């Protein structure tokens, strides 16, 4: 099922000449998570939104208010390629006093569909990928409510959506996994709370078949509801079965990231190893995957709107609350500390030169009235960026690194929104090579 593919990555830098990167695949990989390239081209960018744990039906109105914002204003302003909803679509409580899931409730799914407002928002199975979480699985062994009422379930008849995007000759594969229990257990107060989460043989087989179907993808990103392995919180559940096999697939197919919800917390990490439940047998993923936990849109206070961009095969992310503009995210160069310091998926450094591309996406209801600037290493001076002609949300600059020493530096972009609100994004990069600017004494000698 595995095939070798040689990918040729090419970047060009005006100051120090052309740099040509040959990215060889690791034997067994199909997608190449290390294929990020430092490109001058500004038209190889796509972005999307990930949300999770909407818990439609929970007590109060945050569930529907927040989801409504995402699919109306959020979608209109950010204009994502698609939206992912990674589980716990409904609450299965119907707002009962205890918050005790005793559903499923058709009324919650009706409310979900009403909130999506598909005739106004344009939400459809080609741009909205929802899959079940444990709250959608309680007391529903065949996921009948999910299959009859969700955007994906109604069209595909399945619980694990798979889709692609193509851009500028590159192909990206995305896969949602159903990590929820398949036994239809009711919720319980006792661990594991009726949530016998995991991936069974059939689900793993489908995941593998989809991964192998898209062996020509440049990048593969996977979504699920549960963490892959145990957390340090006793309220959490995770993949009790199928985790080592799942990890093997993530490794074998060169998956770049696993994004999940369930815990109602936010974290960015890099997953390289885990321990199988009960057997405690360790397993690894090499080189590892970005391991991003997004907070609950329906119940949390912040960190529940994730915007991810792919720019020349480099991945960037920002995660924060809703109803707050502008949203800004540096897409090039790629952050070397996403998930962990000096993560191994970044295959390039920023060369020491005068014309390094710096790009950032900026989203605002009135983006033409916005401004973007950047600075290096938190210095006092900010440098203006200009809006790309072909993409109203893209701001760019030519970054001169020739005066920087070799080593780690920070790049910060400050976006001023149309109403004066300021938002920033900061990344770390490694600038390589010696300083190219001659000291004054040498210049004087040459002139003389």
């Amino acid at each position: 099922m595995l095939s070798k593919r040689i990918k040729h990555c090419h970047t060009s830098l005006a100051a120090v000449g052309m740099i040509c990167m040959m990215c060889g695949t690791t034997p067994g990989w199909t997608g190449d998570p290390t294929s990020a390239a430092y490109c001058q081209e500004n038209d190889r960018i796509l972005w999307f939104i990930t949300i999770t744990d909407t818990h439609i039906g929970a007590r109060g109105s945050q569930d529907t208010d927040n989801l409504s914002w995402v699919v109306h204003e959020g979608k209109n302003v950010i204009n994502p390629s698609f939206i992912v909803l990674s589980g716990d679509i409904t609450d299965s409580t119907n707002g009962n006093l205890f918050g005790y899931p005793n559903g499923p409730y058709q009324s919650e799914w009706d409310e979900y569909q009403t909130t999506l407002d598909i005739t106004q928002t344009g939400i459809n199975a080609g741009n909205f990928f929802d899959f079940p979480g444990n709250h959608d699985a309680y007391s529903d062994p065949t996921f009948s409510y999910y299959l009859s009422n969700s955007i994906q379930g109604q069209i595909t008849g399945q619980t694990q959506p798979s889709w692609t995007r193509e851009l500028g000759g590159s192909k990206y594969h995305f896969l949602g996994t159903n990590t929820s229990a398949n036994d239809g257990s009711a919720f319980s107060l006792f661990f594991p709370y009726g949530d016998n989460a995991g991936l069974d043989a059939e689900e793993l087989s489908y995941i593998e078949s989809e991964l192998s179907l898209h062996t020509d993808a440049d990048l593969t990103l996977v979504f699920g509801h549960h963490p892959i392995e145990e957390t340090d919180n006793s309220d959490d559940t995770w993949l009790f079965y199928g985790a080592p096999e799942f990890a093997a697939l993530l490794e074998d197919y060169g998956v770049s990231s696993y994004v999940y919800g369930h815990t109602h917390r936010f974290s960015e990490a890099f997953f390289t190893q885990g321990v199988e439940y009960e057997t405690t047998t360790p397993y690894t993923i090499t080189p590892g995957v970005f391991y991003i936990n997004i907070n609950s849109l329906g119940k949390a206070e912040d960190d529940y709107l994730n915007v991810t961009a792919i720019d020349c095969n480099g991945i960037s992310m920002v995660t924060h609350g809703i109803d707050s503009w502008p949203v800004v995210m540096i897409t090039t160069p790629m952050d070397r500390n996403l998930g962990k310091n000096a993560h191994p998926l970044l295959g390039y450094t920023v060369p020491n030169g005068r014309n390094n591309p710096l790009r950032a996406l900026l989203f605002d209801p009135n983006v033409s009235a916005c401004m973007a600037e950047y600075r290096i290493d938190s210095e006092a001076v900010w440098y203006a960026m200009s809006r790309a002609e072909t993409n109203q949300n893209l701001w760019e600059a030519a970054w001169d690194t020739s005066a920087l020493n070799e080593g780690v530096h920070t790049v910060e972009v400050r976006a001023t929104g149309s109403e004066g609100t300021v938002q920033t994004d900061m990344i770390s990069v490694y600038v390589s090579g010696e300083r190219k600017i001659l000291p004054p004494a040498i210049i004087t000698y040459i002139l003389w």
Partner: protein
Amino acid sequence: MKKIITIVFLLIWLPPVMCAEEKEKVDHVERGKAYFKSGFYQLTPKHRQIEAKEQYIQAVKELKQAIAANPDDEVAYRYLARVYAVQKKPAEAATAYQKVIALNPWDVDTYVLAALALVESQQYNRAVKTLQAAKEYTDDNMVLLKIDGYIAKIEGYRNSKEVSDVK
């Protein structure tokens, strides 16, 4: 001789009859479950509510027959409670859940389901007592904390709404 013949006759005749009766008991439960599942998992998600309601009515009939034949049938009471809850008959659901508890007092989760149904039918005192009773059947601290939390929510709700138990 007559006694021997009678005994032999009973040994031959009784088992099939008993089996048939047992089968009938099981059939009522299974039929009740099937009606419920048809209405709940096949019809309701497809917005065929009128047909689903008919299924629930049939489910109740079957389950009641099962209970009439065997008043200690926990499964029948459990499904009956479920059907009543779906039919939005919380008082009847609470009664059925409490039968389950009586038959299986160690099922702590059913106390919570019963309490929810009691709250929905405005029987707050009984809901609190039901939850307090549940605490006798577990020593899991996390569960005990959650139950205490539920009790506090009932008290808070009752006080904030200034509602009282139905008479």
